[in-house]
């Protein structure tokens, strides 16, 4: 099929090429010239062990404890890494909080805050015998608005 080969050659010349064999190992070294390969291997092993530990913890313990432990672990890791890199911090909560407080989501936030106030008052009041209420629906509306507002900004921030 001469003509289809021609087309595929033209198209593949535009697209990046996938290599099955290992190319010359310049890419990693050039990106991180300071770190040595041995140290890297050790770190990756440590991180796998830690991740396994944290997964086991989360399976056994209650979520609060596991999240605390994982948070502590993350802090420890960050302390270790502080010498080499700055600690990674997620931008998603920040962007979504900005969106939550923006004028776009103001009505939803108003409803949600009002609901939270009402429901907490009901829960504290022991004599209250009305229908049981929760703020899931209001939370949904607010979260939907915030994530929708944050989606394009988040994708610009991520790699």
């Amino acid at each position, binding site marked *: 099929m001469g003509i289809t080969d021609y*087309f595929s050659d033209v198209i593949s010349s535009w697209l990046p090429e996938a290599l099955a064999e290992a190319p010359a190992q310049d890419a990693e070294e050039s990106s*991180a010239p300071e770190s040595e390969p041995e140290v890297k291997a050790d770190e990756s092993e440590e991180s796998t062990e830690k991740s396994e530990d*944290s997964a086991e913890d989360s399976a056994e313990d209650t*979520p609060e404890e596991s999240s605390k432990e994982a948070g502590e672990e993350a802090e420890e890791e960050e302390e270790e*890494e502080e010498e080499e890199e700055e600690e990674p911090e*997620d931008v998603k909560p920040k962007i979504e909080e900005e969106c939550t407080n923006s004028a776009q989501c103001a009505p939803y936030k108003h409803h949600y805050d009002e609901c939270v106030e009402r429901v907490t008052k009901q829960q504290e009041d022991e004599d209250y015998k009305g229908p049981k209420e*929760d703020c*899931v629906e209001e*939370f949904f509306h607010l979260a*939907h608005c915030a994530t929708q507002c944050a989606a394009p900004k988040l994708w610009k921030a991520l790699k």
Partner: protein
Amino acid sequence: MLARTVLRSVPFRGAARQSLNKTSSRASSSAAGPESASSPFHLTVTASVATAIALGSATYLYGQEAFAMTPAEEGLHATQYPWEHAKWNKTFDHQALRRGFQVYREVCASCHSLTRVPWRSFVGVTHTVDEMKAFAEENEYDTEPNDQGEIEKRPGKLSDYIPAPYPNEEAARFANGGALPPDLSLIVKGRHGGCNYIFSLLTGYPDEPPAGATVQEGMNFNPYFPGTAIAMARVLFDGVVEYEDGTPATTSQMAKDVVEFLNWAAEPEMDDRKKMGFKAITLLTGLFALSVWVKRYKWSPIKTRKIVYSPPVPRR
């Protein structure tokens, strides 16, 4: 035509009116109507009792608490994220796939299997042959029975499939408090919302559930999971994984990478499919233009001919 339809519709309307009249007259005959003052006592009692029973049963059925489908049971619909690989002329970001595989291997693989993906499928996509051979050899697989019929263990090969963390469903349920971690090979295709749903689920755990929401013990609140109570706790925290290419491993970055990786696991043919589609559209456009030209060429003598009838001149 119009007149005929109008004419035809008239008797229908007449019939309808007649039937209406009939029903109304029948209703008035059975109901109390203006003669209620003079109706016998037992009829009034029967009607009252029937009304009371009807009202009571309606209150019993509908008046207490409505168990209708609530938004919490549906789950929060995932937000549409502008995925780069979802565009029709874009491929997967293969560096993201490589990072995503690292996240799967270090975080997800302790509970979730990926049984439909063999080690060989990574070669040339995210990793080199030697890297994947090393990964495969870390696992043990059963051999064929030897001369004495015993099954031994051997290190993995490229042609083996990724081993599952649990031998069977019961073991998986037992280890996870009754909840079964689903296989992730086709999870992007298997969930409504696809990539958006999984990304939202992974990153959407709120710090605390909204006021009034009840969360059972051992469950976690996640607005995107139908029913909002999910057995999987939040697993992606900032810095859980250390990326080899130096990308900051934030929660949302890891979620994005692992979702793109899972999309590749579900649709490994996507890059080729888009390329083939591009080729096919290009070729078929040319062939269509050619066929139009051929048709016009072949039909041109027929389309442009002129048939003239010249009647014979009668002789006189």
